[in-house]
């Protein structure tokens, strides 16, 4: 991972621990919920980011995941359904020195907040968006969500959902996101690495996290997260490395025409050289889109890791630049002169 940021650590910041990031509020998710792990990994990685606690802001919308800010001993704002990206954009714009984190879910980000999600991605504020995807509405007791599989039977779709689900990675890429990654609630090391990488990326960072709702959608991602099936159903993306996976590391992804194809690398037909080599830094989104599409294809392993990480100008920097150059051109605004601008006349 390319480290893009060097000047984040102010001199004299005391060393913090996980405990410093735990608020005094009791955590109120259902026992066994995947959210606990995401919270714990976030609290563990925060001290390593090297920023003072007061400069960190967590902003959420509505849903189970959106209670997250209450449990972080940082600044926090639990806002309204779907709108967290807009409020986070305002927080960042008004103070670009803050480290801003959006906590959202599949319903919050992709259904009621779908419009804000796509526009946040393309504006490229330097903020981080963690989407807890459990493919269900938990807080409202188990209705299907925009990432639920077609045909899913839920309280609101007793005969099965009629809708084609969103692929959050594809949606983020199509919206121009500059950092797009996927991680798993049950893989703490990887999750911390992704959160840290998102922080280090300058620009909007998006992480889709497969998260288990053990009450309303238990096991929806188990084939990708559980020990006995994970290796054969996920492919971990590493920049510059071929797409190899499997418990025996004997399988890989090859390009067959325009389609991904799973091949064995030990039976003599194919070698590692035949496999796609991941490049997360390429400006062109073809590869990232191709990898994203694998999770829409039955029997394909789901890629986990960083799909794309490119450096584009950030909105807040561009705005600051406009302000600075306007001041250079026209001088710092003079209110007295502004009020008296244009054609005036004096009555004595």
């Amino acid at each position, binding site marked *: 991972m390319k480290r893009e940021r060097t000047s984040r650590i102010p001199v004299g910041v005391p060393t913090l621990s996980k405990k410093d990031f735990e608020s005094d509020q009791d955590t109120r998710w259902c026992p066994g919920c995947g959210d606990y792990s995401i919270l714990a990994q976030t609290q563990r990685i925060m001290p390593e980011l090297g920023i003072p*606690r*007061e400069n960190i802001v967590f902003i959420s919308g509505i849903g189970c995941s959106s209670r997250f*800010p209450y449990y972080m001993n940082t600044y926090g704002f*639990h*806002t309204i359904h779907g709108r967290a990206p807009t*409020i986070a954009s305002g927080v960042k714009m008004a*103070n670009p020195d803050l480290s801003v984190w959006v906590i959202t879910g599949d319903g919050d980000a992709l259904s009621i907040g779908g419009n804000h999600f796509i526009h946040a991605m393309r504006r490229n504020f330097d903020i981080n968006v963690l989407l807890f995807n459990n493919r269900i509405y938990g807080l409202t007791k188990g209705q299907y969500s925009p990432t639920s599989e077609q045909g899913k039977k839920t309280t609101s779709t007793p005969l099965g959902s009629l809708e084609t689900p969103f692929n959050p990675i594809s949606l983020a890429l199509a919206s121009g996101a500059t950092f797009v990654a996927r991680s798993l609630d049950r893989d703490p090391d990887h999750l911390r690495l992704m959160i840290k990488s998102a922080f280090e990326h300058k620009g909007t960072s998006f992480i889709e996290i497969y998260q288990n709702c053990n009450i309303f959608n238990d096991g929806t991602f188990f084939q990708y997260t559980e020990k006995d099936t994970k290796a054969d159903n996920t492919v971990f993306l590493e920049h510059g490395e071929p797409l190899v996976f499997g418990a025996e590391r004997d399988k890989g992804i090859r390009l067959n025409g325009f389609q991904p194809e799973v091949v064995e690398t030990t039976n003599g037909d194919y070698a590692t050289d035949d496999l796609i080599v991941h490049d997360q830094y390429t400006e062109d989104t073809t590869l990232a889109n191709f990898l994203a599409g694998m999770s829409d294809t039955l029997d394909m392993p789901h890629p986990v890791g960083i799909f794309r990480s490119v450096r584009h100008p950030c909105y807040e920097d561009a705005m600051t630049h406009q302000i600075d150059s306007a001041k250079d051109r026209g001088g710092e605004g003079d209110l007295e002169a502004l009020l008296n601008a244009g*054609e005036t006349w004096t009555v004595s």
Partner: protein
Amino acid sequence: MRKPVEQIEEATILFAGDSGDGSQTIGTQMTETTALIGNDVATLPDYPAEIRAPAGSLAGVSGFQLHFSSEQIHTPGDLCDVLVAMNPAALKVHLQKLKPNGILIVNIDNFARRSLRLAGYEANPLEDGTVAKYQVFPVELTRLTRKALENTDLTTREIDRCKNFFALGMILWLYNRPMDYTMRWVKTKFATKPQYVEANILALRAGNIYCEATEQFAVSYDVKPAVFEPGTYRNIEGNMATVLGLIAASHQAGLPLVYGSYPITPASDILHGLAQYRNFGVITMQMEDEIAAVGVAIGAAFSGALGVTGSSGPGLALKSEAINLAMIAELPLVICNIQRAGPSTGMPTKTEQSDLLQMFYGRNGESPIPIVAPSRPYDCFESVYEACRIAVKYRTPVIFLSDLYIGMGAEPWKIPKLSELPEIKADFAGRDQAHGNGFEPYQRDPETLARPWAKPGTPGLEHRIGGLEKSDITGHVSYDAENHQRMVEIRAEKVARVANDLPPTEVFGAQEGDILLLGWGGTYGAIRTAVEQCVQEGLSIAHVHLRHLNPFPNDLVGILKRFKRVLIPELNTGQLRQLIRSTYLIDAIGFNKVQGQPFHVFELQFKIDEILKELGHF
């Protein structure tokens, strides 16, 4: 020999034509010119929602009405002295607004049979007696403009677009106004296109010389400067005054201004205006929708900026959930609603005052929010500044409730001195407010009940806020029954205390007696003019115009009770009246109009006469 000049006190001119004919442009030019001479002026742009409706159609008529005087005036005038009709459709739509014997200038070149038919005229109205009671001046505006510009390199299409300046040249001659302001404007406007500068000035001069040279116009008129208080003045539109008021508040408070908005008529000019002032540190963000627009403003407020959003009624409907969030989170936020005629999409380019109850009540739960309304174009400056002051001092969203009539109208403004502006103190919480139990984000100021404004980045004040009900003092999430009731009451009491800051209410006219006209918003001019005339006649009538609609001023009830009748004229079906009746149990009478048009002064006078009659005065 110079033609005679007649001195008159005031005049009202209405320029009307196709929406591409440039009536708004020349109306503005005449306004600026006459304001610079020292007249009092008031304007009313009246234009269609379509950018270019089919040429020559009734739907495409765009008008600009301008009233100027050597006396103080408050309205754009009821009826007009001059109507400039660039085509038959403009004549058809606006002829009823011309006074008997008024001056009617028509572009005769546009009165061919096809144009007549488009306007719905069976016969030529210039020939069939329709215009018999007016002084008609048929002018070959198109042909004469082409003639004047024949030596330029412009295409005929480009030349024809200069004919509004020919008409402006005529009006400037008719009212003895100089052409220099417009010449300066043309030179700036077309700085990169010198051929247009030349062409428009040629057309302007040609119109002017035409009136001097032909025998059609025997007299011209002059309106002497009005008497104004000493000071420096400029002409200003309401939305521009709003822009300046916001920048002034941001400057005086030492807070960066973050304005989130989404384009909507008639509020977009505030976005356009603010976007010009990056050198004041002004951040404007055109967002993906109305909700995102208020969202960034709330985020900015949480971060310690002056967060402002602006829209019109439909946008306010979309923003209401987010405004409620700012209310319960107790963050400063200013929401500008430039009202237009509703409901739904309604009539976007027409004026109305029908969002008052929406602003009062249009949110779930108990959600009190202060409301401040400007009364006239220049008052937008002070009123929006006042909205910012309240928002910052009381940590609450405040609604600035303007309307299209004020926002797009223009008048002379006495530019205030910076030293006269009230103080706005942001007063952020510092790290000294963190103590043993940590920071308590709902520990209130005992006088204002405002909670601390602790911005991220301040060490030791890390805290969490949100839309869930919070426990008093600590700010923890709370479902406690008693606490909820207490918090609802505290939030209401905080807004009620805003009234303690307000100056005594001004009562114009009789201090007690027969009728009090109680108004708010853009009806100020019509009500004040009607009441001024009654007062001159010695009638016991008064006018109170409310800037603060929530909370009402503390002294209002006493004033209302000093009059036999309270008459509330509104451009809605009686929304303030409903609030006054329910708040004070006073049997206020309504006078209501919902036509997308402002009151005429005579309409109010008829109503006043009717009440006086009932009181036994005639």
